[in-house]
């Protein structure tokens, strides 16, 4: 392995002395060190911190991703300028050379990413302690309790609607509701109808009519208990028939006396359609780590207009309980680890491409993979490729082409990772915990499996390649 390390060291020296890396470092420095002086956000300190972190990490990720690809130029350069003649006539195996190049790029990226992370951390402290808080109590509290922390979120436990849906389905069957569909519609499937009914039940459950009550249950709240311990309740409501002043007036009750917890009644009055977060004592969480929340769609404010609004808690993340599980620093480290895994994969892609393509083409191919990995989910949704039922006999040339394309595309997706699955910047900026399991997944899938595949192919191509090849 000493030769791998020797080549890696050389790669690092090249990256620094050829000034390619320094250009990127300067760009990252300009973003990270310059933004705090100009960023405004929503004019609050917490908003400025969030905006800064979001821009800084996004820019860092993009620039370091490009750097990983650019640094791979070294291999292509050595082939073109023939330094490879010196290196590969020494006792260096070709796989050692490839691995060394990749390691050098990865280490250089690690150093830059660590530097960028440290700079962001420092600049966050700078913003925090030098800017004036317009509403110190709210803003500082938000910053320390909602942003510069690592909070874990638990979503509501949805009731099981399948039994009700099945019962309704049976009733419909007996009533002959589906007879026409069964006879005349070949696409009609009974299983899908059951699912549709279950979803309908859930949608109905998410709607809370005037003066009605909805009970939300949360499980697995591993909160720390003790003096000053708190949890946060975050929610957003949509209203089917909003009142003229667009203000929600309702009340929540947290806790469950049947489970031995105190109950806290919280009247709320705020604009509709915005996320609201409230802090609650951790004591409202039962010992079985559950929390009961009751939502009363009644106006608790006497004398204020009473409008019979129909409340909706539409999306899955519109009601959740958050509690602190880690520090800002620890969260930052996990975020950097995720970013590093992506960079390791990109470095491997860069090395792979330069083993058999000249640099401009290799860079283009690498960037294509980079973009594809970043927008995979979007592209897949847009293409809406589904082999589905038509797999088998092709009904037309168009069908054949579509199926073939879908097959190739799905094959490509097996190799190209989905970066959005490992994009934790938004979570981090919102003070959400970057779960260790994401990091482990990224290490296994990105830095491990996919990187190993890319490097393995690179080694194979490089092994078979004639290094003094003559183009005729």
């Amino acid at each position, binding site marked *: 392995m000493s*030769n791998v390390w020797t080549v890696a060291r*050389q790669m690092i020296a090249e990256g620094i002395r050829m000034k390619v890396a320094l250009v990127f470092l300067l760009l990252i420095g300009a973003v990270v060190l310059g933004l705090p002086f100009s960023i405004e956000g929503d004019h609050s300190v917490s908003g400025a911190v969030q905006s800064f972190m979001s821009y800084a990490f996004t820019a860092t990720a993009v620039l370091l991703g490009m750097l990983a690809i650019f640094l791979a130029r070294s291999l292509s350069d050595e082939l073109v300028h*023939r*330094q490879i*003649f*010196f290196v590969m006539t*020494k006792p*260096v195996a070709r796989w050692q050379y490839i691995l060394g190049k990749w390691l050098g790029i990865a280490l250089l990226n690690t150093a830059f990413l660590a530097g960028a992370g440290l700079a962001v951390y420092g600049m966050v402290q700078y913003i925090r302690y030098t800017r004036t808080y317009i509403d110190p109590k709210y803003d500082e509290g938000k910053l320390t309790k909602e942003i510069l922390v690592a909070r874990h979120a638990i979503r509501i436990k949805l009731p099981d609607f399948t039994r009700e849906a099945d019962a309704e389905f049976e009733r419909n069957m007996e009533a002959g509701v589906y007879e026409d569909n069964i006879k005349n519609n070949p696409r009609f499937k009974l299983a899908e109808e059951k699912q549709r009914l279950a979803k309908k039940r859930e949608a109905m459950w998410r709607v809370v009519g005037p003066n009605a009550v909805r009970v939300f249950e949360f499980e697995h709240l591993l909160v720390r208990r003790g003096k000053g311990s708190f949890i946060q309740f975050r929610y957003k409501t949509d209203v089917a028939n909003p009142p003229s002043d667009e203000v929600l007036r309702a009340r929540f009750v947290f806790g469950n006396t049947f489970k031995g917890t105190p109950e806290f009644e919280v009247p709320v009055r705020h604009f509709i359609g915005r996320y609201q977060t409230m802090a609650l004592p951790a004591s409202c969480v039962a010992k079985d780590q559950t929390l009961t929340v009751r939502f009363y769609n009644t106006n608790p404010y006497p004398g204020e207009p009473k409008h019979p609004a129909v409340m909706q808690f539409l999306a899955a993340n519109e009601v959740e309980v958050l509690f602190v599980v880690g520090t800002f620093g620890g969260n930052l480290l996990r975020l950097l680890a995720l970013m590093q895994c992506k960079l390791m994969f990109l470095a491997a892609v860069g090395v792979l491409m330069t083993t058999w393509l000249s640099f401009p083409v290799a860079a283009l191919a690498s960037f294509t993979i980079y973009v594809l990995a970043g927008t995979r989910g979007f592209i897949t949704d847009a293409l809406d490729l589904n082999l589905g039922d038509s797999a088998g006999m092709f009904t037309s040339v168009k069908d054949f082409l579509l199926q073939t394309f879908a097959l190739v595309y799905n094959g490509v997706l097996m190799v190209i990772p989905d970066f959005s699955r490992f994009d934790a910047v938004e979570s981090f900026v919102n003070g959400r915990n970057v779960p260790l399991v994401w990091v482990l997944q990224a290490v296994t899938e990105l830095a491990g499996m996919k990187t190993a595949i890319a490097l393995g192919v690179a080694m194979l191509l490089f092994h078979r390649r004639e290094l003094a090849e003559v183009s*005729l």
Partner: protein
Amino acid sequence: MSHRPPVLQTAGLCKTFRDFWRRPRVEAVKDLNLEIHPGEVFGLLGPNGSGKTTTIKMLLGLLYPTRGRISIFGKPPTDVSVKSRIGFLPEESYLYRYLVGSETLDYFGRLFRLPARVRRERTERLLDMVGLRHEAKRPVGEYSKGMARRIGLAQALINDPELLILDEPTSGLDPIGAHQIKEVIRELGRKGKTILLSSHILADVEDVCGRVTILYGGQERETGDIDSLLREESLTQITAPPLSPATLDQVRALIRRLEAKEVVDVTHPRIRLEEFFLRIVREAQDANLHTHGARSGGDIPEFLSKATETSEGGVVEELVTAGRRAEPVAFKPEPIVAKDPSRNVIDDLLGRPAPAGDEATKTKRAAPARAAEPARTAPHADRGIIDDLLKGSPSGSGKGSSSERDATRETTP
């Protein structure tokens, strides 16, 4: 011939370059059979495009043969372990422009897994040898072509190789550098290293190689002992100190009488321009005139000849030592005919008896030493004479030059 297996062997080696569509376009090497034995300084000669560099690239695993077999130290050239015993200088010095000279050597030393102390020592000694010690901290990208060649040679020697492959080693070098490189090759040959030299500069090959293969159009045209290839059997050359016209007439008459043949040519021999140039530069260096370029190199570092401190351990050390012990195979050094300075040419020609034990003087054709003893005495003798003549000192100076001047040399041109 040696009973030891050849260091390098090719059998039916062919290389065809193809175009993008895999259609054969150029047959660069055709059915090449080479055999280079331990301790041999072997020349690969040929005009541009004759397949020399392609052959070397195949020997080093940088190109794969289309057909045929290559064996280096009994293994294929792609075997990594083989490469630790090879030093290679490509036809151009493709170095890392951003590394300084000493870092360049250190990097390549690392690739041979040499310990830090050994790398440091060898780097210093090799920089001394190639005359770049004073430029050791300058980026290689700023080096002149000649300086880059020198550092290229130094990197080829960093591992104390048993087999040294040099592709156009003197290209881009000034006469001093070319001379130094040839000296290094001679010295390494004397130490028992096996050297494969590719060049189209015939004088270089003639100066240092014992055996050559001449390539043309990718095919081997001639292979053999350089002396036997170049020896002109139809003429005899006699070299003597300046003779008076009367003596020359006597010599002519004697030859006419004894051999019934006319003397073809009588002239003053010329030294080679290279030797003259080197002397002028040496004088400038002795006068400590300043230069930013490469300086004359130092001696060959000890590690290239001494069996010490190789990091590779016992096996390599043993192999290196074995190589050093090896007798040159194809060209056993033949002694230069040392003449008794007290005897003159006329005595020899008239066949007057020599002092007892001077059998060598009876040798009519003493071939100049080559290969493992390439430091031929003859050029030094010539240089001494010319030096003396140019200094206008008929009596000469120094013991060496007087004895050389008096010596009579008989060679076959």
